[in-house]
């Protein structure tokens, strides 16, 4: 069913009792042309673009839990394309352009709000680095504005510009950045994929891969064997689990990232502000809750919950940047498992196994990438060739020395 003012009125007259299911609940068929493991944002977007933009036959998405219960439903929803390096920026800018039309494309309100994002800087050196990044963004066709202190004050008057340790000198702003509704992105892609004929199978965990003579045959699951001509893996923090089933290890470590949401407040902040020097960022959801986050806990984890020192650290940094947060009550905190790559950039590539494709390494920034990741992964699976904005996101770049290390931290995933 197409969602519109007319369908809304029609359903309202029927007491909203007649809305069709957003996607079907079904059992898997014995075999598909393409199977995608992982019903997160990336897996669902991949299935959607495979079914709507490519001619690949029958497609299924297998999700071990409920749809959208992974990182797609756990992130702080920041969307931006403020990257420096040539391997990344065209990809993220392509993604941002897809975001700008996503609600219309999916006929589903993903509540994409281009409220802007401001990265604060506190020293001459940091400003110079941000100027360089801003120029790189402009050269790649994105938007960037350098704010001085007054500019920061105008957009984010609650920020304490005179912080003793990190006085604010200004900020790099991307006006087209912003936030979106995370669940709606998963549900919108799922609905679109389902309408295009994709089978979405929840509570279906992949427990093994069947590979003969180096070619993928299908997957073992709790619902039995499911055959696949091609298999795409988009399982975020569980990537190493799946690669182990194919007998290879990845340049990936799994780490926990926490986030927080406060009680609902009146409108407080209408943009996104990041305080990188202090490991803190903030925005406000449409329900009024302040959405807060910081850095990784810093140790390998699959636990989806972090430790209290990180909670304390994030809150300390928040109060340092915005002193009036000190009376804020936090309602919820949670964690998600990040697929941290060795250079901090993602991987969308083929693997040593014929017909097996991997989409991983999103670190803490894969939400913004969802549309382009799905688009490029679908392109790769359909054509056996990288999409033009994803040619740098290769698995072999670590072997050949073509790392895409935005932060310059080297092969230390807990620092990216």
């Amino acid at each position, binding site marked *: 069913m197409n969602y519109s003012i007319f369908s809304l009125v029609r359903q309202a007259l029927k007491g909203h009792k007649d809305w069709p299911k957003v996607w079907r609940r079904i059992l898997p068929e014995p075999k598909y042309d393409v199977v995608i493991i992982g019903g997160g944002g990336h897996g669902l977007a991949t299935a959607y673009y495979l079914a709507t933009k490519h001619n690949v036959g029958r497609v299924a998405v297998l999700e071990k839990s409920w749809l959208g219960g992974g990182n797609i439903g756990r992130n702080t929803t920041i969307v931006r394309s403020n990257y420096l390096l040539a391997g990344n920026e065209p990809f993220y800018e392509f993604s941002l352009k897809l975001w700008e039309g996503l609600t219309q494309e999916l006929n589903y309100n993903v509540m994409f709000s281009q409220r802007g994002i401001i990265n604060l800087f506190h020293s001459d050196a940091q400003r110079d680095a941000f100027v360089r990044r801003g120029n790189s963004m402009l050269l790649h066709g994105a938007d960037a504005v350098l704010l001085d202190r007054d500019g920061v004050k105008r957009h984010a008057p609650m920020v304490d510009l005179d912080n003793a340790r990190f006085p604010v000198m200004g900020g790099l702003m991307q006006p087209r950045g912003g936030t979106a509704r995370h669940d709606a992105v998963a549900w919108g892609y799922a609905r679109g994929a389902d309408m295009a004929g994709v089978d979405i199978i929840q509570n279906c965990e992949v427990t093994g891969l069947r590979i003969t003579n180096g070619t993928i045959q299908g997957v073992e699951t709790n619902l039995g064997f499911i055959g696949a001509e091609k298999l795409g893996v988009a399982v975020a923090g569980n990537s190493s689990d799946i690669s182990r089933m194919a007998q290879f290890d990845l340049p990936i470590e799994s780490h926990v990232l926490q986030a927080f949401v406060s009680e609902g407040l009146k409108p407080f902040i209408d943009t996104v502000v990041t305080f990188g020097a202090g490991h803190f960022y903030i925005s406000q959801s449409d329900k009024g809750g302040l959405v807060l986050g910081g850095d990784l806990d810093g140790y390998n984890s*699959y636990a989806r919950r972090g430790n209290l020192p990180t909670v304390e650290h994030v809150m300390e940094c928040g109060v340092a940047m915005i002193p009036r947060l000190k009376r804020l009550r936090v309602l919820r905190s949670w964690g998600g498992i990040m697929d941290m790559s060795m250079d901090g950039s993602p991987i969308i590539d083929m693997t040593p196994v014929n017909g097996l494709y991997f989409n991983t390494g999103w670190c803490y920034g894969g939400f913004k990438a969802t549309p382009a990741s799905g688009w490029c992964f679908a392109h790769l699976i359909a054509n056996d060739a990288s999409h033009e904005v994803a040619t740098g996101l290769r698995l072999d770049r670590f072997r050949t020395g073509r790392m895409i290390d935005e932060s310059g931290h080297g092969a230390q995933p807990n620092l990216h």
Partner: protein
Amino acid sequence: MRIHCPHCGLRSIEEFTCLGDATIARPDPSGGEEAFYHYVYVRENPKGRHREYWHHGGGCRSWLIVERDTATHEISSVEAADAGHGDGS
């Protein structure tokens, strides 16, 4: 998480920094590119027991090898890194 430092006793995790996998060993200089690629970039990343280096920077400043379950965060052993374990170089 709290770590039982063999020198300082039971301390909060915020006194420590994690470096990562302690099972990888630097290959022999003549080991070839493939061995160095694995050493620098490839990780087993297990869900379960993980031997890892931690630095007690907020305490005795010594390096430790902690064996910890990455699925539950439970710590099963802590020893001084210079006790001849891990890569040692």
